[in-house]
């Protein structure tokens, strides 16, 4: 179910990505707020699996009717999986940004340091108010 509430089980960036730990990998998507600003998402340009990325580097692009918007990696590491369902159903990001609308999974290379630099749900709420 879609929710405007930002789940407390994950961290956030000031660029409106979320990052959820699943064992030693991290799932990344964009927040409810980000999709509500973009509206009507029609295409997601997904990164290549195996790509090595730095924290805050643009790795994917979300195209809405209105505009194209970069998605930045919240962490450094290697892209290990992308959400193939978005290729045919990009609107999953609008409908369910925190679950079915995930974008990529990353194997972090500097998790200990970088995880703590991310915002928790409370700080992110303050940012978007």
């Amino acid at each position, binding site marked *: 179910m879609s929710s405007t509430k930002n789940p407390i089980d994950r961290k956030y960036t000031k660029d409106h990505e979320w990052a959820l730990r699943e064992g030693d990998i991290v799932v990344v998507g964009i927040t409810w707020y980000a999709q509500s600003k973009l*509206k*009507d998402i*029609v*295409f*997601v*340009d997904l990164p290549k699996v195996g790509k090595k990325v730095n924290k805050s580097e643009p790795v994917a*692009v979300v*195209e809405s*009717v*209105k*505009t*194209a918007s970069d998605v930045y990696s919240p962490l450094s590491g290697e892209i290990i999986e992308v959400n193939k369902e978005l290729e045919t159903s990009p609107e999953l990001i609008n409908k369910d940004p925190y679950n079915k609308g995930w974008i990529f999974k990353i194997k972090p290379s500097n998790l200990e340091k970088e995880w703590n630099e991310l915002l928790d749900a409370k700080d992110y709420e303050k940012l978007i108010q």
Partner: protein
Amino acid sequence: MTSLIPTPLKEVHVELGAEMGEFAGWEVASIYSNSIEESLAVRNDLGLFDVSHMGRIIVEGKNSQNFLDLIITKNVKKLERGKIIIPTAILNEKAGFVDDVSLFRLEKERFLIVCNAINRIKVINWLQSKSDEFGMEVLIDDITLETAMIAIQGRKIQRLSNLNYNINRESFISNISISGIPIKLISRSGWTGEDGFEIITDIDNGKRLWRKLLDDKIKPCGIIARDILRLEAGFLLYGNEISENINPIMARYWIFSLKKDNYIGKEVLEKILDEGVDEQRVGLIMKEKGAIPRHGNEIYSIKSKIGYITSGGYSPSLDRGIAMGYINSKHALLGSTVYVKIRDKLYEAKLTEPPFYKK
């Protein structure tokens, strides 16, 4: 920043929970629910648009016909009462667009110009200064802020029994009422590529009419849906496809007559037709589904840059990226493959003749 002019129908949009946005200095409704659904409603059924931001300028007086005939690129002398020249243009001395407009003949000596929101003040100043220059006195009255303008557009226009007027395209009728609501003018016109009406009323009746039309299950559509629809229909947007530096010939926008007597820009138009143009407007359909061209993207042949995109976006009707742009005339080969550079990657596109969407 100068402050935005709120559309006179703002309160009805806010009631509907619309997201408000900026267009050409106006605060307008951008999206009601979802601009893809809104644009498809027009293609499959009906859509309702607040187009009050468009400029509405009355020109009247005994010189009005002869004056406008020097300003407008089509024959004003032949325009009968109750008829519209749509679209036509006002050109500058270099044959660039001051604006593209429609011209209504309200009375023998009374005309209405409907112009683009972004050019309203410029057009008024242009009319005033040319009237002074030609020594042809006319009364110019800007009625934009005291009126509202509503468009009903869509394939199922016939289903509206209360709008069952026998108005041909390029015609209008004045001072009637729709479901008991008095209106100033209703014309068979629009900017979506579908059949429909545009209605001018005073502001209070505009609000009443908007609410009445919502009761008729007409989907309200925001400015983003309007932009999608006009792009699909291949209509030119001032500031994107046309400007003071673009002439109608390179725009391939046949809104002028060379048969009539003189008007501003005519001699230059004839010269351009004789000499040809270096670049011209084309349509582009993207091959890959995810490639969405945007204003400002560059167009390439195999290796060289040959043009640029002026309007681009996602077409819900085609489920593809579509665009209009200008390219070097040598490369304007309809049907050929070109490439659009989007985020440093070249995406295949086919050069085509708009409209992209046909009824």
